[in-house]
């Protein structure tokens, strides 16, 4: 399916990105940490959303559980950061399995609505847990060293993308795509759809939670409102869909571009940035509804006409 050059290019980009803390300034590194973590979130969302077509708004719950798991383990039990990440990831994966088994039986919009409710429920629970600092939140021990967080975030994104690369070329991934294309038919070919969907959600929760844990230690503070934030989940969806859902590099490219666009807008016109950011997304949906990766393939095939054919085909 995929040629050799995207892989070579991706390795080169990863090497260049790994060098940023040595030759970039502090602003670039801090922007990089955010962008890399967001790209990881979009890529994790891609595992379920892109391959099986199940639109989850529950991924921000896994993110929140990752931040709180890490924070509680480090502040109350004085455990090292690495153990905290594992605690957060295990809690999030358990939650994904427990929640996934009942609600992955719902399809389409019903599944999306069911996951949407999870954020509020989880924020309410955490706000009332003394061990999680109730509604005030937790302060983590301070560690200076943006470069370490940067390299951690980059490593996580690389591992997550390698996982998606494996999925896209495996029997497992083909079953996920078959579920997206026609779940009943996949079932009648002997694919245990529930098992595949739940494992995809659990895998998605793993990377999402680790990204949350890294962000918690870096920002040294967690509170219920920012940990279980639906708008963060919406950003995952937008970045993944903008780049190309169900592809290996689409979500990463999509989130890098959107992070950069937002950063430029925020520094140039500050107050109206969100407005223009919305405009960029509307234009993207109109002209390249299947994402940037489809835009590249389509432009090679039919040039600029590709953009206008999308308008016609999607009756916009």
């Amino acid at each position, binding site marked *: 399916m995929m040629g050799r050059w995207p892989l070579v290019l991706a390795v080169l980009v990863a090497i260049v990105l790994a060098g940023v803390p040595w030759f970039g300034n502090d602003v670039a590194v801090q922007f990089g940490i955010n962008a890399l973590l967001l790209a990881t979130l979009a890529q994790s969302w891609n595992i379920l959303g892109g391959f099986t077509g199940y639109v989850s708004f529950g991924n921000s719950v896994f993110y929140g559980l990752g931040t709180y798991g890490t924070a509680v383990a480090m502040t109350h039990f004085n455990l090292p950061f690495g153990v905290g990440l594992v605690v957060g990831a295990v809690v999030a994966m358990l939650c994904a399995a427990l929640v996934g088994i009942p609600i992955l039986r719902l399809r389409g919009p019903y599944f999306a609505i069911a996951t949407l409710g999870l954020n509020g429920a989880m924020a309410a629970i955490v706000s009332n847990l003394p061990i999680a600092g109730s509604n005030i939140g937790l302060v983590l021990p301070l560690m200076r060293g943006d470069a370490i967080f940067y390299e951690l975030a980059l490593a996580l994104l690389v591992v997550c993308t390698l996982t998606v690369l494996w999925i896209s070329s495996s029997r497992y991934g*083909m079953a996920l795509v078959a579920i997206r294309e026609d779940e*009943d*038919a996949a079932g*009648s*070919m*002997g694919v245990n759809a529930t098992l595949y969907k739940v494992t995809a959600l659990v895998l998605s929760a793993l990377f999402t939670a680790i990204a949350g844990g890294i962000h918690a230690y870096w920002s040294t503070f967690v509170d219920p409102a920012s940990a279980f934030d639906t708008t963060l989940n919406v950003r995952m969806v937008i970045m993944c869909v903008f780049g190309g859902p169900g592809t290996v590099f689409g979500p990463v490219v999509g989130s890098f571009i959107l992070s950069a666009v937002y950063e430029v807008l925020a520094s140039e016109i500050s107050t109206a940035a969100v407005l223009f950011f919305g405009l960029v997304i509307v234009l993207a949906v109109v002209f390249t509804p299947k994402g940037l990766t489809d835009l590249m393939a389509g432009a090679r095939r039919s040039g600029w006409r590709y953009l206008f054919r999308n308008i016609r085909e999607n009756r916009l």
Partner: protein
Amino acid sequence: MSGDVVLEIAGLHAGYGAVPVLHGIDICVREGEIVCLVGSNGAGKTTLLRAISRIIPARGTLRFNNKGLLPLTPEAAFDKGLVQVPEGRQLFGGMTVEENLFMGAYRRRDKAVAQSFERVYALFPILKERRRQLAGNMSGGEQQMCAMARALMANPRLLLIDEMSLGLAPVIVDQLLVILREIRALGVTVLLVEQDVFAAFDVADRAYVMETGRIVREGLVAELADDHAVREAYLGTEG
């Protein structure tokens, strides 16, 4: 044409929730046969197929190769060689023809999958030409061929085909009937569910006629085609 009994159904009852649909069905399919099940809309044909595939609960006798099917899950029944070509094709539209065929062999663990590809490409040469094309972009006839090929990739012992001719041009249906005979020659037994009685009688050895959840006629196709009631109800020709 009288091999071992592959599928034995006796006194089978099934339905949806509290609504019974099948009221004691008796059917028997022997090795190497093409048996057709005809009947109008709402007779319960698709319900019967769903019961055989273990998608809906049922009670009565349901045996496949002399082993009871009723306790099995749909996946386990599939693994035993009971494979369905669903009504309306249900192809994976966004996947290529080749990927669709691969999905048919998804549960197989043996090494002979490559030979199965050769076998179905020999039966359906058009699919070999189109193997890199998206299944959703093909014509209805080609899609039906792809659905049948996908089912064959699972190495079925009994192929259950639901409404093969639905929405297809007569010339395409004739081609499919020829291929159905070739499939039988490969040692696959076929249970064909059809509304198009002409097409079904053209290819089948024996037929069952179903009305409101019961089998009302059965016998060799040649005999049934001469049956006055069948002619009147399904072939639309008097005397």
